[in-house]
């Protein structure tokens, strides 16, 4: 019986591998075949890290997004969702932005409102940018350096405009001396000392100390200009004033959003944006299955959230419409993390017992399998971040010898931890993510085999910050294992790992260092990273930080996430970009027909 099952299992695995391989090969060959068809889909993975059907693009038409999720806010200062940043380039511009190129090249910076990449002086403590000519707001008035300063200052008003990233605030004003534009008593509300605007065309940043990722921060959506007389404060997200090629026509939260051309935007002033369609719309759904069916039927062009199709739509699409799919790596790592405040996870051996006890293939299947879920995660650095090694760095042989779990090693570690008979703990998982619940069940089942009894607790996913973001609450509830995922805000170990691993990021509310890592050597490496301007040194530090984190066994990575994303046959000039974690680059999408 046992042998039979094993052989059956092996056969399964082989068959699966064959299917995967087949799919990928057909994709590779099949892509070109379909490409010729004017109205046909470009082929499987045709837009994954490369441009699909760029030559077929026509100006005009309505580009239709569908989504089951609205943005956290469309306010450039407040938005933090990845798709919001991607989408915001339609109606906002920054000093610098990402190159509109596929894959890794798309993560490189290029001047946008600025004429060049800026002049650095003072050993990285002063940055000066000059603004381009012809840059205008949607009412035709020119965009000035003061507008940019004001837009950046808004991040200081966290009490009114919460939610967005605060990197610039932390870097420019680490002591929090400035109180934000709304409490600013100076007449022009431009009291932030770290930014100078000697004239309307020049902006100068003064950093208290250098930061190696400063240019990345200047390129964030949250560094977009905002005009003071158009600032409706907390309601700005309902109708942001456009500096880009499109402007808001109508927005009804959770229902629909429509952008139309900003007639005052001049293509000559913008080296980045092509602005192909005449109109861009988003329709919000509540039923993911329904939305996928509408995408398959061609009623909509792509999913705004770009988090992959739901199981049903995915299966149909893979079987019948493979040429419309891309399978990018998302830049997210999905993982379980062990708060050291919850016993027995204060002991590294108990943490290692979980790492060895887990069935990594089963976890991968729960995440959606090798195609829709991603490769088995073996360490904590996502492949898009410089310094990442992917599956090559696999200290616990999660994708190798131990991929189905290693009960013997787990038992050994349990003994070393002083819990030879196992222990009981609680897995915390968001209730609004079915895939995460499935992962928790898988983990629970495999841990049971080594004597670790885990109970699953589903908490309200909308309250993440207050529930697992509060170390005291985590301790009170006994959450020994928390299931989460994380993607980089910008492709560097600072933009990814600092909130997770640096001890100074441990907060009483909204904490993201769930493991409560207080490792001086890790803190030191982050300090070094932030002040190092040499790229190869930065890459090396990034690798070392990742190793240090893995050696501490604070995390059980599940997958280097991959998605199956849909692209309609109407779309042209489609490509995924690393700058937005493997999403399509929205800003230069076009249609094959102007109708």
């Amino acid at each position, binding site marked *: 019986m046992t042998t039979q099952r094993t052989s059956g299992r092996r056969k399964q695995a082989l068959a699966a591998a064959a299917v995967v391989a087949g799919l990928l090969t057909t994709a590779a060959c099949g892509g070109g075949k379909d490409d010729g068809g004017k109205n046909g889909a470009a082929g499987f993975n045709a837009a994954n890290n490369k441009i699909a059907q760029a030559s077929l693009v026509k100006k005009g038409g309505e580009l239709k997004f569908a989504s089951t999720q609205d943005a956290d806010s469309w306010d450039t200062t407040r938005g933090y969702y990845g798709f919001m940043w991607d989408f915001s380039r339609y109606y906002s511009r920054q000093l610098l932005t990402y190159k509109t190129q596929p894959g890794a090249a798309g993560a490189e910076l290029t001047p946008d409102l600025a004429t060049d990449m800026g002049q650095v002086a003072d050993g990285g403590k002063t940055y000066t940018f000059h603004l381009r000519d012809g840059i205008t707001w949607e009412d035709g008035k020119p965009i000035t350096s003061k507008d940019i300063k004001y837009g950046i200052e808004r991040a200081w008003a966290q*009490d009114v405009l919460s939610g967005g990233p605060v990197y610039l605030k932390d870097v420019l004003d680490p002591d929090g001396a400035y109180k934000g534009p709304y409490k600013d008593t100076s007449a022009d509300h431009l009291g932030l000392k770290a930014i100078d605007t000697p004239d309307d065309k020049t902006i100068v940043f003064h950093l208290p100390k250098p930061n190696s990722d400063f240019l990345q921060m200047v390129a964030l959506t949250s560094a977009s200009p905002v005009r003071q007389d158009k600032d409706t404060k907390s309601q700005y997200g309902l109708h942001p004033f456009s500096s880009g090629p499109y402007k808001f026509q109508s927005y009804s939260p*959770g229902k629909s959003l429509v952008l139309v051309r900003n007639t005052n935007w001049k293509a000559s002033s913008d080296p980045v944006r092509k602005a192909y369609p005449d109109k861009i719309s988003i329709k919000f759904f509540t039923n993911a299955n329904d939305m996928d069916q509408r995408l398959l039927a061609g009623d909509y062009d792509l999913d705004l959230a770009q988090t992959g199709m739901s199981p049903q739509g995915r299966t149909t699409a893979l079987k019948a419409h493979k040429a419309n799919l891309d399978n990018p790596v998302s830049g997210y790592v999905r993982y379980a993390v062990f708060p050291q405040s919850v016993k027995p996870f204060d002991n590294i051996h108990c943490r290692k017992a979980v790492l060895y006890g887990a069935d990594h293939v089963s976890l991968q299947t729960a995440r959606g399998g090798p195609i829709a879920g991603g490769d088995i995660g073996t360490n904590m650095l996502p492949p898009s971040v410089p310094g990442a090694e992917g599956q090559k760095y696999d200290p616990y042989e999660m994708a190798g010898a131990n991929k189905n779990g290693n009960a013997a090693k787990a038992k050994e570690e349990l003994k070393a931890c002083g819990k030879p008979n196992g222990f009981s703990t609680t897995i915390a998982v968001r209730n609004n993510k079915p895939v995460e619940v499935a992962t928790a069940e898988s983990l629970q089942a495999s841990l049971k085999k080594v004597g670790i009894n885990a109970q699953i607790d589903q908490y309200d996913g909308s309250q993440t910050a207050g529930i697992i973001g509060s170390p005291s609450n985590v301790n009170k509830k006994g959450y020994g294992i928390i299931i989460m995922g994380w993607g980089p805000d910008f492709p560097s170990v600072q933009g990814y790992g600092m909130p997770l691993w640096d001890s100074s990021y441990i907060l009483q509310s909204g904490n993201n260092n769930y493991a409560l890592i207080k490792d001086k050597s890790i803190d030191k490496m982050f300090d070094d990273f932030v002040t190092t301007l040499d790229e190869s040194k930065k890459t090396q530090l990034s690798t070392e930080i990742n190793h240090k984190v893995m050696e501490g066994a604070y995390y059980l990575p599940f997958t280097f996430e991959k998605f199956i994303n849909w692209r309609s046959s109407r779309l042209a000039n489609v490509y995924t970009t690393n700058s937005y974690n493997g999403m399509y680059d929205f800003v230069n999408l076009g249609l094959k027909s102007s109708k």
Partner: protein
Amino acid sequence: MLAYLIRRLFAAAVMLVVVILAVFCIFFVFPKWAGVDIAGSFVGKQADPAAVEAVRVKLGLDDPVYSQVWEFFKGIFVGRTYAAGGDVTHCAAPCFGYSFRTQQAVWPVLTDRFPVTLGLALGAAVLWLVFGVAAGVLSALKRGSLWDRGAMVVALAGVSLPIYFTGLLSLAIFSYGLGWIDGQYVPIGDSFSGWLGGMILPWITLAFLYAAMYARITRATMLEVLGEDYIRTARAKGLTEQVVIRKHAMRSTMTPILTMLGMDLGALIGGAILTETTFSLPGLGQKVLDAIKNQDLPFILGVTLITSLAVLIANLVVDILYAVIDPRVRLA
């Protein structure tokens, strides 16, 4: 009659107040006991303590419950102003609260979404009344026949299947599969035929369940009524069976049907969560589920209020209709 109306209206108003109090308790008092900080849930990924504090001030979370309730009632009549951290938000009367999640006043959103839900409820009600009552009457008149058995088994099937099951099935068959119906919501103002195309599946799905129930009740009531003395008297008088059924039996049968209709309609108008979710209809039910998922309290409160109001009004209307339909009922 007038005194009765006033009494009922007063009772309804008291009920509304009680409902509001209960909802306040659930969302403000219970979490406090459980040690959950609601203010934190109004803030995004990186919760700045200042932001949490501002929400606390704006929502008045630290005030005692009675003063929160008072502010809420006052807002309905005179509007309300929320201020914190230099940001002032005005919510015009009638102010049923303001959502800091979506930065919208509750009332305009509810009035925007109300027509969708109303259209869904009324359209479905017409269908289920016509088919449900007809099937029930026929079954009662031909008790024990093949028709009776068949209709009741179908009705039981209707009662036994969850709407998200039948709804998805209907979409899979008629929209994705056969492509007969588009099945996407279009506002009635944009295109009437588009609106019909979007509403027909939700109507049928919803009506299927309700028709099943109405058929069962109609049958039971009709059988009961047919056994009453006055029906026998009518027959003895030599009236034709048709007249007996139409003029006498139907009237009495309609009384319990009306009671149900009032409550069902009232409840549906408050939001048909499952139907609207399944068909992505932008109505009140969809909004309230969204609000629950995001812990968007002002909307939950607003929709709860509308639901209760709708049920209370519907009951009132039904009670008055009784007197018109069934002369045996007197207003008490």
